[in-house]
């Protein structure tokens, strides 16, 4: 009120009061609309399992700040792989995606979709299609897969554009027949581009091998984990000299093995732990 007096308005100046009230109303309305749009946008944050982004797509959240939903990538794709999401398709409305089982990505050498993208929502740094990571294949239907049943289908393996790197056949003993081999299709995430060719080609009624968004398919060990054998290779020798052969315990095996004494571990010695 001190302010209003300074400006020469009476404390109850009706004009000013109305203006202020109006201002408050508009501000509230604006906040309401912003909140509504925000809430609506929040619902389409994550990508449903069966939908994949085009090659080079930024991580989902960045993608949604970058993609202007122009459809230039869709127009550029010679195989009609990509489409723009409609309300209810799952991905944020208007953004490009594809469904591997319908039309997979053919992994064009010149990656026209990326070149066409004006905003960089499809990262122009991607120039070698083998480096694309649209998703990650995995044999989710292990028990239905013909190869896992002991037959030789191999179709997913044969069609893979990155054959023998992204997908290999791992041989194991067939415990059922006791004399044959199982050729298990195994996907290697470090080479799988997520193109979806394997899923598209799986001969089953419902594909046993599926390509899922990285976030869903990719397992990850803790940041602080170190694999001893890799560290050993890096160092070129044992990490800690002279240790440690822990006793092997067999299931249901003898329990009469003596636990190793702490004092035998170098560096701990007599001082023991905690001193």
């Amino acid at each position: 009120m001190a302010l209003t007096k300074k400006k020469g308005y009476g404390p109850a100046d009706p004009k000013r009061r109305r203006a202020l009230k109006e201002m408050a109303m508009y501000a509230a309305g604006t906040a309401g609309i912003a909140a509504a749009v925000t809430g609506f946008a929040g619902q389409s944050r994550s990508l449903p399992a069966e939908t994949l982004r085009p090659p080079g797509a930024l991580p989902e959240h960045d993608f949604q700040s970058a993609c202007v939903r122009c459809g230039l990538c869709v127009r550029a794709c010679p195989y009609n792989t990509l489409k723009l999401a409609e309300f209810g398709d799952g991905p944020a409305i208007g953004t490009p995606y594809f469904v591997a089982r319908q039309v997979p990505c053919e992994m064009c050498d010149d990656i026209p979709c990326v070149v066409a993208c004006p905003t960089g929502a499809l990262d122009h740094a991607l120039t070698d299609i083998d480096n694309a990571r649209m998703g990650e294949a995995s044999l989710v239907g292990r028990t239905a897969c013909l190869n896992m049943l002991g037959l030789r289908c191999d179709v997913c393996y044969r069609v893979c554009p990155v054959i023998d790197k992204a997908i290999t056949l791992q041989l194991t003993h067939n415990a059922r027949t006791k004399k044959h081999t199982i050729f298990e299709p195994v996907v290697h995430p470090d080479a799988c581009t997520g193109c979806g060719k394997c899923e598209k080609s799986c001969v089953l009624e419902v594909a046993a091998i599926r390509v899922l968004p990285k976030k869903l398919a990719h397992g990850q060990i803790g940041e602080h984990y170190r694999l001893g054998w890799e560290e050993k290779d890096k160092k070129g020798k044992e990490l800690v000299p002279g240790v440690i052969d822990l006793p092997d315990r067999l299931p249901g095996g003898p329990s009469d093995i003596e636990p190793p004494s702490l004092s035998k571990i170098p560096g701990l010695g007599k001082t023991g732990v905690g001193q």
Partner: protein
Amino acid sequence: MSVRREPGVEARQQLGWFKANQWLLARRATQLGFFMLFASGPLFGIWIAKGTLASSMTLDVLPLTDPLVLLQGLVAGHRPESLALIGAGIVLGAYLLIGGRVYCSWVCPINPVTDLAAWVRRKLDIKKGWNLKPKTRLWMLGAILVAAFITGTIAFELINPITTLYRGLLFGLSWGMATLLLIFLFDVFVTRNGWCGHVCPVGAFYGLVNTTGLLRVSARGRQRCDDCMDCYAICPEMHVIAPALNTADAGDSPIITDIDCTACGRCIDVCPERVFNFTHRFDQRVDQPPAPNTMTARSRLVTAA
């Protein structure tokens, strides 16, 4: 029935149907033309412009990007590739040169819909409604930028009816039509010229760009005005007319400079006295009053009758 005057009827009687609708026809042709640049590809396999109004590539050389969509992306935290920046620069430059809200009347696909709604509203003689202020759209513009900032996504594009309609028609999606119906009903039953004249944040943005454009409407023949009010009845932004017409003093500019004027030219069409014309921003000519014994078009008509 009340004896309500339908704007444009008198102009049609005096000047003929074509002259009383020429700018409307020109606008419809332009709107369709822009659409066909995009649609000739999917329809006939003749690719001229690819993409949508959000961003496009014409004849593989001319990139165009909607500056507001890009701005939302920037606010959301994305640094776009140069292609989009160049495209937005070209679009922005063009509208700064011609006039920002020319977009609304000559390009935007929503315009025919809201024009139709305004016509229906006049036919149904709906006068009452929710009195929104035209500046509401500036708050809307603020709101969508806030939403983009908070979500870190181009949030408004989820519901933007303009790009949704283009996408819907060009990529075979149908959902955009629902928003269209909402806008139509809002304009007919809730607020006169509600969407384009009060709410649309895209219009607000192009209004802010509408400060330097060369293409303007002038009330050059304002001394001929006989206060029939047809221009006010048809104008989607009726508050823009008065400063150049009735409330103008003799020395005042005849140019409609208000940033809300969409340069739709409807005032030119419907005016039986031919008060308005398209001209450039710096044209300050005002017609001199007629010599006492010359008759206006209307007085001629009256005398003839």
